[in-house]
């Protein structure tokens, strides 16, 4: 049985004449994680957007199996600041999820359900956005800097969650500047 979810061959990307990365080849199977690292401006987020099909690569080919079943959390949280926490959950269709209360309690968000998102701290907003990841049922999870703005407890919670997801056979692609202690393939963009 084929367990490959992503297969990229000789991916290159350049903006005008500035080459961001060149001839990247990688693949990702079920149960595997891919850690994309690199300095600021090295093209980590761009590579994520290429994997998602938002930005076209300049050269090379990329194949995603079942690209309608991807859970993505980028730099932007896709939260509506003028809506309450529960309204935002409703927007993403998560308000009736069976595990919602468990995660709300774990992330200390349960008491903020009626609070407008704009009044939450950056870290709390990040946790709220991460709920979408925790409650997903996708085979492929793609996260752009998921640990930014999180306190130690939340960081560990996210890490443990991702480890559990890997055990269940899901695949994860993530960018991070820090070592997240998740056994991963590493793609270092210089």
């Amino acid at each position: 049985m084929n367990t490959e979810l992503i297969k990229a061959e000789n991916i290159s990307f350049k903006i005008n004449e500035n080459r961001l990365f060149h001839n990247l080849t990688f693949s990702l199977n079920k149960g595997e994680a891919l850690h994309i690292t690199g300095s600021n401006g090295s093209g980590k987020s761009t590579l994520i957007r290429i994997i998602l099909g938002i930005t076209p690569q300049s050269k090379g080919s990329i194949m995603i199996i079942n690209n309608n079943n991807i859970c993505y959390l980028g730099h932007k949280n896709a939260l509506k600041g003028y809506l309450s926490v529960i309204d935002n959950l409703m927007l993403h269709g998560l308000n009736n999820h069976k595990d919602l209360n468990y995660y709300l309690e774990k992330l200390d968000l349960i008491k903020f359900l009626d609070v407008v998102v704009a009044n939450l701290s950056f870290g709390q907003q990040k946790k709220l956005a991460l709920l979408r990841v925790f409650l997903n049922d996708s085979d492929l999870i793609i996260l752009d800097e998921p640990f930014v703005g999180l306190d130690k407890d939340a960081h560990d919670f996210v890490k443990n969650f991702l480890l559990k997801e890997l055990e269940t056979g899901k695949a994860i692609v993530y960018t991070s500047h820090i070592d997240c202690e998740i056994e991963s393939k590493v793609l270092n963009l210089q």
Partner: protein
Amino acid sequence: MNVFYLEYLKLKKKTRHWIGPIIVFILIMIAYPLTVEFLEKDLEKGFYSLLWISILLSMMLATEDIFLEDYNDGTLEQTIISISSFPFLIAKKIFIYWFMIGIPISLFSFLFSLGITKNLNISLLVFPFAMICSYIFLNLFVFGSALSLNKGSVLGAIITMPLALPVLIVLGKGVIAIQFGINYLELLLLLLGSLSIIITSVPFIVSYIIKAHLE
């Protein structure tokens, strides 16, 4: 969850965005009689021209940042990834805007027409014109708004305004037809035909433009 309901919820919470254009429309309509000598005939003469232009301006205000918020907070990216039919979603979004802003403005058009002309028949016949033209204007300005997504709404309005001019001409002729008892249905059908082309093509064009912006 139903996309209609979600868009409705978002717009309902953004009170300024949907009540604002309606209030601007009402204020223009109220201000109109104050700016001319208070003679009923004179009021009637220029009323419908002002009515169509007010609807045009209100629709322009309504769509000012229809996609900007979703673009800035990352919702558009999420939508493109998770929803297979992006044009269909845009069509629904435009419909909700028309439902929340276009229809109330059309109803107020009827009421102001009745107040100014004191002619129920003319006002009733003007109502469908207002309904259709508000939907057409909304679609046109959504197109403009998508084009100038991160470049300011004025650019979009400048690009789109000339496209609305033929519609304004038809509306002017429609009012004359109604007032003189000529067959106005042909003009109404012409507008309906234009609307049917616009509502089927604009969502596809807009989705393509937005994807290009996100690249």
